[in-house]
């Protein structure tokens, strides 16, 4: 008994001594290859970045709750939510090495937030789970009754990808930051075919066939297809879609500022950017996408209809749109 207690304490001591860590909210191993990126960083620097399942909105909510005693060093969001977090004053400025390579429009002038990579909202389809039903080609195809129970998009009040899609479909359907009606009307029709609104990454559910159609970042679909060799196809709807910059920022009052700055610097390095690219998120640093990976994306023509969304407006509208979505769809 005494011996086992001793062993336990030793183990525990090891667990606790590893204090050279950076706490990142929203660090899902299987999203944008964060698992691979953090493992590589650990190998390079010895610094641990533990996994964290929070979606963008939850990460922001947690930062807000912990404002007076911050626990996290940094957070990763889909664009608008990260910008909203900056607007709430949850970030402190930092401009990591390589700042100038980030294209304009994908970073804050003061360094409150910046983009690390981008994705495109698309249909990720498990063809085996879809069965005999034909592949949808456009957004409106999804409203057809044959897709009943097969369509999924992330709860927009939880994660940023879901929010980007909801905002984006509103924009595509003719709405604006002040007029949500067209988007919500369309989403209400889609609701009839929705199996659930997941609050966590369902990457593996899609890969395994738990879910047939996932409205999500294209990169997740490519990874399923090329890396995990799943029966998965990516469809970029013909009637246009939106892009989604994924951003980061340093938490105001972060416990490990120096370590976090080093981490940020490294994330924009060619090495880290190429690691992100392994999961088919497009590096924000131009030219960092290796050629052999570029060929595995759909041809550029498929991406012709991709729109960029105004992040600042989206951020301002985010609370209102989330509430409206809850009232009209999520809580129906």
């Amino acid at each position, binding site marked *: 008994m005494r011996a086992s207690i001793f062993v336990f304490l030793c183990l525990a001591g090891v667990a606790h001594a590893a204090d050279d860590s950076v706490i990142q909210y929203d660090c899902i191993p299987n999203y944008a290859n964060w698992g691979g990126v953090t493992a590589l960083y650990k190998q390079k620097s010895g610094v641990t970045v533990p996994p964290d*399942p929070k979606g963008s909105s939850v990460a922001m909510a947690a930062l807000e709750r912990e404002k007076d005693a911050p626990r996290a060093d940094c957070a990763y969001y889909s664009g608008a939510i990260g910008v909203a977090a900056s607007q709430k004053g949850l970030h402190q400025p930092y401009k990591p090495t390589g700042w100038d390579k980030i294209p304009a429009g994908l970073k804050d002038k003061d360094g409150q937030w910046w983009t690390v990579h981008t994705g495109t909202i698309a249909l990720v389809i498990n063809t085996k789970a879809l069965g005999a039903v034909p592949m949808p080609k456009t957004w409106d195809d999804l409203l057809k009754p044959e897709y009943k129970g097969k369509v999924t998009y992330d709860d927009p009040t939880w994660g940023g990808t879901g929010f980007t899609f909801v905002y984006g479909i509103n924009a595509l359907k003719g709405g604006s930051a002040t007029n949500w009606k067209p988007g919500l009307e369309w989403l209400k029709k889609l609701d009839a075919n929705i199996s659930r609104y997941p609050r966590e990454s369902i990457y593996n559910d899609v890969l395994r066939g738990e879910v047939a159609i996932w409205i999500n970042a294209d990169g997740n679909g490519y990874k399923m297809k090329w890396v995990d060799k799943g029966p998965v196809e990516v469809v970029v709807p013909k009637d246009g879609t939106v892009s989604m910059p994924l951003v980061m920022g340093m938490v105001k009052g972060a416990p490990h500022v120096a370590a976090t700055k080093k981490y940020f610097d490294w994330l924009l390095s060619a090495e880290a950017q190429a690691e992100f690219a392994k999961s088919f998120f497009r590096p924000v640093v131009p030219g960092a996408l290796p050629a052999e990976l570029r060929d595995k994306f759909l041809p550029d023509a498929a991406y012709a209809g991709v729109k960029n969304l105004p992040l600042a407006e989206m951020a301002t509208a985010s609370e209102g749109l989330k509430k409206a979505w809850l009232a009209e769809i999520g809580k129906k």
Partner: protein
Amino acid sequence: MKRRRPLIIFGAVVALLLATFLLVPLVVVVVSAFSPSAALGVSSEQWAAGAGAGRAFRYVLATYGAHLRTSALLALLSASAALALGLPAGLSLGVAPRTRTAGALEILLTLPLAMPGLTVALALLTAYGAYAGDLGLLVLGHVLYTLPFTVRTVAAAARMSAIASALEAARTLGATRVQRARYLLLPSLRRAAQTSLLLALAVSFGEFNVTFLLATPAHGTFPTALYLTYTTNSFPVAAAATTIFLAGLVPLLAGALWLGGEPQQGA
């Protein structure tokens, strides 16, 4: 007497069916953890861990090893704290006459078990949100859950062995305070202390609600790691993590059961 036999046999068959219902999913999960096949959705996370049946386990230990260590530490700290507090508390409850104060204290102690775990976690978060992620707060949360087990087990043992009267008898025979503790108290409570320690370890090791809401990624526990694998990892990884969890939990439970205890409520 003989007429009730059919009922007992029927009941035993039902119990057997229910036990099968309880066991089969665990067996399926454990088996699939050892035989990850493409059908179960082998995913990119594992390619890095190499080939073979153990790769899901290697991945889990590499990715969530810190969670496992945190859980072990947390279980050890909170179970020891619960034992340190619960031994005297349970002893005085068991030895003291059943007064109203004693009854109220016992109810207060067991209240955290009666409440939904989420309520307890939320109450802690509301009051001590500023300390979220501190190991101390996690230990406090776990002690709330483990203390009732130690207090109850020890109090029951104290009542059963009629310690109060034995102590009186020992005093009349001239035993000093130290001798009474050495020869009476410790031997009669030893089993209860062991049982409740094992139970407390099991309860703390498996507790989800409190750590899920109170832990930051820096001190994630293994149940939160399980949640992570369930929501973000592939099936074989989730199955491997569950297998590791069971491997930690089942021996504790078996030990406690063997010593005569019983977990009252999971988390």
